[in-house]
């Protein structure tokens, strides 16, 4: 089930979408990808549930817009950098964030906030009603395929949080 998807498709009707973002060759940058993968492994049954979609994507750029389109609730899981201790887990709603901008500008300066803002301007009716970010504080971002121990240790808690949110959303 660890199938990658990406920002090109928009023909989904799912009401909840979990999007894991990250670069698998950049150390802790892959934290979001790994957390969602682990959640998939542990909670396989949930994936079969109706109206739940999972996306794993590397550098979605402006293509994130296509992933957000047509979904009521989006849970983004991504590595973040806010000078907290590596492995710290942040749960934030859209209005709590002044800037979701990409650190490296890998999307030519297009981060989640900008993408969402553009989507809300151009296609407001298709953008998610609720967007939550689970941010995992990154430590080591050097080139490599493994996570640092602090981030690795945080993953089970992230998995638990995803499961909690998904379950709760079904009762909303």
């Amino acid at each position, binding site marked *: 089930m660890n199938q990658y998807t*990406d*920002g*090109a498709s928009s023909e989904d009707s799912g009401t909840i979408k979990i999007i894991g973002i990250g*670069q698998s060759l950049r150390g802790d940058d892959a934290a979001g990808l790994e957390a969602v993968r682990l959640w998939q492994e542990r909670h396989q049954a949930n994936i079969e549930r109706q109206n739940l979609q999972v996306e794993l994507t590397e*550098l979605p750029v402006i293509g994130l817009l296509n992933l957000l389109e047509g979904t009521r609730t989006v849970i983004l899981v991504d590595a973040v950098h806010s000078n907290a201790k590596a492995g710290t887990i942040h749960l934030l709603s859209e209005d709590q964030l002044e800037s979701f901008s990409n650190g*490296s500008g*890998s999307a030519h300066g297009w981060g989640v906030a900008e993408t969402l803002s553009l989507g809300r301007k151009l296609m407001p009716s298709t953008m998610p009603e609720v967007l939550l970010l689970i*941010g995992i504080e*990154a430590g080591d971002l050097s080139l490599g395929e493994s996570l640092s121990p602090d981030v690795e240790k945080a993953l089970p808690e992230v998995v638990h949080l995803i499961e909690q949110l998904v379950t709760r959303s079904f009762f909303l």
Partner: protein
Amino acid sequence: MNQDIHIPALARVEGEGALTIRLKDGAIDEILLNIYEPPRFFEGFLHGRYFQDVPDITARICGICPVAYQMSSVQALEAALQVTISPMVRVLRQLLYCAEYIESHALHIYLLQAPDLVNHESALTLAAEAPELVKQGLRLKKIGNELLKTIGGRSVHPVNTCVGGFYRWPSEQAIHGLIPELEWARQASIDTVKWAATLSYPDFEQAYEFVALNRIEEYAIYDGDILSSNGKRISPQEYEKYYVETHVERSNALHSHTTDNRTYFVGPLARFNLNYKKLRPMAKEAARGIGLKVPLLNPYKGLLARAIELVHTCDLAIELANLYQPNGPSHVEFSIQPGEGCGVSEAPRGLLYHRYVVDEQGFIRFARITPPTAQNLAQMESDLWALAPTVINQPQEEASITFEHLLRSYDPCISCATHFLKLKIVTE
């Protein structure tokens, strides 16, 4: 401007770059373009890897132009291992490249450079004023991504390309099914050219040396000889004899020069100027329609060259999609042998050179990757020096913006480093 300019993070360019302009006695003393470009790390990362892993690893260097990295790497490895691909693989690779041009050019034209030319801070503010225009750009980009995904399996870092061909043929039906959208994209590209011609471009021209791939029979993107506007034509194997990279202390990216220490310019403007005659008739007609003539020596007008290339690649994509008919194996079988090979293709931002040495077991013993932005850096600095005297009397903020506009016109692809989010949490 009466004090130094320091732009710590260039906006709307891919990756992290900083620009510092120092003044001394009222005159420009130093211009430092500081860039962090990771391909050097990737070269080390490739060492000891199995050759067949290289296309997928190099695709991760850039989220905007992964196909270019795959195309240059597979060609280099196929040269090293003496592999000949089938004609249908070539058709499909060219189609894949068209997909990347469509998504990358649409991104740069509409979301990155256009806001500068219409005095908007970003595509966000432009979208508020001209939503239909930005929507057109987004739809064009999406069509490129859809095509990329259909062939490559994913639209960000495609995974279907391998040394010898493709892991599997995409379905004929899926490719043909995209033709109506590509026809829309072709018309939208023609409209893009007309709209782009109405924009106001700063008056700035330099005597550039342009370098691009060239083929006798077509507008070279996938492969070709390396042609310079000074008339020199060389084979890809000769590249390192004529073009060298040197380390510049302030920057993580190497800077390229010709061996006789001249700067040169790669990218859409170079391709357009050197290969104008090879453009597809529809693209040439679009260029004639707005009175565009070669040589085009204004870097800001790279946007026009991109728009013309958008018409060209949409039109070419339709022809290639119609030609596509998978039959036989999607990749050729071959035996591993030690060897060395290089491959060059035209990334949307310009010439991309790869060279590899493979050992008898198929492991990489040496890798060299020269990306287009590294080749343009010295030229960009040279342009900043040429522009500076006209900017020095502007107010500080205006001067900063003027420098940034020039750099963005190059569409620098300061390849993807990490993409982590910089969090700023609002507390009330």
